[in-house]
Every structure is written in structure tokens, then in C-alpha cells.
């Protein structure tokens, strides 16, 4: 039997024959239950459109006002960029880098990498020369892209501030909320096995 007809569970190393999974069904490892293959019809096009949407939303969220507060006639607004870089001065600068990466750079980079990897596949063109490293990087960065966690952080901070001041949610806030939804749905749609089948060299 050819090795290409086998699939090994990444979590328990059990070896299986590649199952014939119809679109919309999922094939899981019979020993540990890890989902191995979950193809979906038209998933490629959906992922490409969502990646495009994510790029637009990140730039929009950076451009428009994010949040502003007002108390006793004094007001102050912050853009998403100012939120990400608020740890100014001294060693705390490092935290700014981490926050900027987690909520701006990595969501943007991952959307870009997915567009680069999947756009040719969706339009039945040969994959780009660097498609494999690009998708590999995108997969490695996945845990570090934290848009949805930042959204919960927003909710917590708003409750904290709401007592002392009037808070206004800017357009960027809603764009960021949309970005969270897009990112979560997109990650659910990606079937890694199918992507590697489409772009892999072997």
C-alpha cells in the first residue's frame, strides 16, 4: 500500500487508511477521537472571501475611532493602535509589541497567508511556489492570533469604566467585533488535510 494512502493521527500516532470522507462529513481517529479530515464543499471560496474581509476589517479597525470616554466634560478617545501601544516607556514596551502582534499583526498576516495559499487553489490554478511554507507559518501562528480574546477583554474593561464615565463605542469597535466572528468561522471551515492535499508537492 502506498504511504500516500495512509494518515497518522497527530495526537496519538495511530495509523489509518485515508477514509473516503464525503463533503460535509468528518473522519476522526478511532482511538483518540481527533478529527483528521473534514472536507466541505465550497470551503475554499468561503475562506478566501473571509480572509479578504478580515484584511479590510483590520485596516478599518485601525483607521476609525475605537472607544472614547467622557466624564465631567473631559473626554478622551483611543484608536485600536493606541490601545495596542499603550505600554509606553521602559521594559513595558515589550508588552506593547506582544499586544500589537496578537490583535493586529498576526490576524492580518494570517489572512494574507491564507489568501496567498488558497486563492490559486480556488480558481483551479497551480499552487504558488511558497504555498507550503506560507500555510505552515499560518498554522504555527494560529494560537498567537488573539482577536477573540481581546474582544472579551473589551467587555471586561467596559464594565470597569462604565461606572466612572460615559463610554462611546466607535465604528472601529464594531469592525473589530466583525473581525472576531469572521476569524472564528474561518478557522472552523479550514480542513487542513484537504488544504495539504491541494497545495502539497507529494
Amino acid at each position: 500500500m502506498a504511504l500516500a494512502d495512509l494518515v497518522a493521527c497527530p495526537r496519538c500516532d495511530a495509523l489509518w487508511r485515508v477514509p473516503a470522507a464525503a463533503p460535509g462529513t468528518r473522519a476522526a481517529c478511532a482511538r483518540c477521537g481527533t478529527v483528521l479530515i473534514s472536507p466541505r464543499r465550497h470551503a475554499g471560496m468561503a475562506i478566501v472571501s473571509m480572509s479578504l474581509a478580515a484584511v479590510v476589517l483590520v485596516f478599518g479597525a485601525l483607521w476609525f475611532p475605537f472607544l472614547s470616554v467622557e466624564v465631567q466634560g473631559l473626554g478622551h478617545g483611543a484608536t485600536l493602535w493606541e490601545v495596542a501601544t499603550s505600554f509606553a516607556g521602559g521594559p513595558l514596551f515589550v508588552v506593547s509589541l506582544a499586544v500589537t502582534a496578537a490583535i493586529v499583526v498576526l490576524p492580518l498576516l494570517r489572512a494574507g497567508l491564507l489568501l496567498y495559499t488558497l486563492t490559486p487553489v480556488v480558481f483551479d490554478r497551480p499552487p504558488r511556489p511558497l504555498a507550503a511554507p506560507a500555510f505552515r507559518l499560518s498554522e504555527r501562528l494560529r494560537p498567537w492570533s488573539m482577536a477573540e480574546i481581546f474582544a472579551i477583554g473589551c467587555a471586561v474593561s467596559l464594565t470597569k469604566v462604565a461606572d466612572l464615565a460615559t463610554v462611546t463605542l466607535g465604528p472601529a469597535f464594531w469592525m473589530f467585533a466583525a473581525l472576531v466572528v469572521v476569524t472564528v468561522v474561518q478557522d472552523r471551515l479550514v480542513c487542513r488535510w484537504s488544504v495539504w492535499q491541494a497545495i502539497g508537492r507529494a
Partner: protein
Amino acid sequence: MSDLHALTAREAGLVACRLCSRVWPGGTPRCARCGAALQSRDPLALSRVWAWWVAGVMAYVPANLWPMLETRTLLVRRDDTIIAGALELWAGGARGVALIILAASVLIPLLKFFAIAYLALSATRPVLLSPHARLRLYEVVEYIGRWSMIDVFVVAILASLVQLDVVASIQPGPASLAFALSVISTMLSAQAFDPRALWDGIERDAAAPARAPA
């Protein structure tokens, strides 16, 4: 016990790619499909887990002792640690939010430290929990580890938003750096763990003298 046994890639003399699930003849250095480095079992994996684990625990101590937020209002200036900030929220009536902060910043990191240590220890000696249960534990640790960053984000938002001249201003405290480092180290520790080690123990335990089933 029988459903625990399965032919593994390693037993078949093959090496599996953990990134794309393709299998190759044993000893192949790099996956020709996705380009990831291949190693049937990395002998240094557990050392890396413990190294990042120690870094995470060490950073977690100042993260709780140093101030997370420095709040200045007209009359007072106060420094709040993570726990003090959450207790103040609780006293102010925002109990749900206080619980979220306590769960994300205190409970989850502590449980993560214990869970990773337990999993790493279980890779080399027999333990009570089945591989299935330990894999679930690993998946939970991997999933919720990132959520501890909530508190760092909260500090970022408050510090950028609450800048109202003399009336009130909030500055991030040094604990934010320690806390972020602790979360990142713990995430790296969990990522360094190879869950396949949980299953390799089945053959080893089966070969050992009979133990009472848990």
C-alpha cells in the same frame, strides 16, 4: 483495554508529520508535502516542556505581587495587583466580571501549571488517568491557555482610554510584563509537549507487571 491498542506509525516503522498527518519511511528528516521537520519522538521534548514551565512559574510570582494597574485620581494614587483589582470589582458589585478576571488570571494559570506538570510526569511513569482522559486534559490546557491574556488586554484598553488629565488616569504596572511573559511561557510549554507520549505508555504499562485497573 483493547480499544486503546492501535497500530501506530512508529510501530509500523514509519514517521508521521504532526503538522499535515502524512506518513513517511522511518528516519525521513523532513516532510516532503508540507516541509515540516519530522521526528518520530523528540527526546528533548520533555526538557523543553519543563524549561518553559519553570519560566512560566517564575514569571507568575511577580505577576501577582507587583501592581498591574496604577490609578491616579484627583486625591489618591493607588496601585492594584491582579487580585486586589478583582476584589475591588467584586466589592463594587460587578461580580461576574470579577469572576472572569479571577478565573482567567488566577485559576486558569494555576490549573495549567498543575496540568502540564501532571502530563509531563505521566509521560514517563504509570498514572491513574487513562490516555483518553489525559488527552482531553491536554486539549483543555492547549485551548484555555491563551485566554489568560484577557487581563493584559484589559490593562491595555484601560491605560489607553482613561487618560483624563487630573481627574483620572490609569498607567500599566510592571506586573503586566511579568504576566504576559508567564502566559507566553506556559503556552510554549504546552506546545512543546508531544501528546503522542501519552499513548506510548500503553505498551510500556501493558508490559509492566499487572497493575490494578483504575
